[in-house]
């Protein structure tokens, strides 16, 4: 039985424990809670510095009532960044390449943001369905289009992350298979493919970080509209 290209996205189970469970616990282990000490160890200091920089960047444009979401969005950022980058290690499983996990995160958080907006300031939230400065004649069409774009948001959020990571992993697998296969037959082509593989791995590392940031940034933008 030969393996198909998509078999890397299966989660193998040993002793009733799926690998996805270990991959999801990984961010919890890698980021210990801050201590009460004034000066922490290097690892904790660098993690806390990064997290405070990222959180202040994300929450700069958001009103003070929205700052209650800081803990949720910063932990989401850490969660996604760690899972994405850990998936680049050999033989590991990437939970965020699964639509189930991404849609679960995107759908729940988007719905929370929209319900918050509808409950606290319904007029303002519904007002987003008609952009400012639009001609009066286009109002019906614009409202329909904006409603569709509102409901597409969770799907877009989840599928964007899934597609980016799945495509990246597949490309890496394809390129590495090609490099290995051509190593004995056409070594020069294999060297070029190897260089391509190296560049692709760099790209995937960047994509892993950027996609996690984009996920959280978009959620913060939706929060900004509704809070």
């Amino acid at each position, binding site marked *: *039985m*030969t*393996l198909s290209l998509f078999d890397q996205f299966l989660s*193998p189970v040993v002793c009733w424990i799926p690998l996805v469970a270990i991959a999801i616990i*990984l961010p919890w282990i890698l980021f*210990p809670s801050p201590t009460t000490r004034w000066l922490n*160890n290097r*690892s904790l200091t660098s993690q806390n510095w990064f997290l405070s920089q990222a959180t202040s960047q994300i929450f700069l444009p958001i009103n003070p009532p929205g700052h209650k979401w800081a803990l949720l969005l910063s932990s989401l950022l850490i969660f996604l960044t760690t899972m994405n980058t*850990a998936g680049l290690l*050999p033989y590991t499983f990437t939970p965020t390449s699964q639509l189930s996990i991404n849609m679960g995160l995107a759908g729940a958080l988007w719905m929370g943001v929209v319900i918050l907006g509808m409950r606290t300031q319904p007029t303002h939230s519904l007002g987003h369905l008609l952009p400012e400065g639009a001609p009066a004649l286009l109002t019906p069409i614009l409202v329909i289009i904006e409603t569709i774009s509102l409901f597409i948001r969770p799907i877009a959020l989840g599928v964007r992350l899934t597609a980016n990571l799945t495509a990246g992993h597949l490309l890496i697998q394809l390129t590495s298979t090609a490099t290995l296969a051509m190593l004995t037959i056409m070594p020069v082509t294999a060297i070029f493919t190897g260089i391509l593989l190296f560049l692709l791995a760099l790209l995937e590392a960047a994509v892993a970080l950027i996609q996690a940031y984009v996920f959280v940034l978009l959620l913060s933008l939706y929060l900004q509209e509704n809070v």
Partner: protein
Amino acid sequence: MTPCPTMHFLFLFPSFPAATPPAPVKMADKAVPVVEKSLADVKLKELPRWLAGRDLTPNGLVRGVTGGYDWYYKKYINVKKGGIGGISMFLFGYVVISYVWSFDHIKHDRWRKYH
């Protein structure tokens, strides 16, 4: 009369075992039950017996896991000049665990079958 008469006796008579002082007892000679040893002192063949004797209740398992985590954290991460070694070892162990988990699936790969 010689100045030290006892010395002649020592020369003439052989030394009996009772005459030599007993060897001092070293700390390593004390017998410790296997279950009470720490994991670093347990030999490989004693490992199943050590594991069976541990506290295997859910609370005991949680305490064991958190104890292991705290030991690793204090030894390699929470140190004055912690470097990349602590996290690298952990990530290497994670890769090894992932390999072990996927082996049953990977062994069917074509490249492995036709070696």
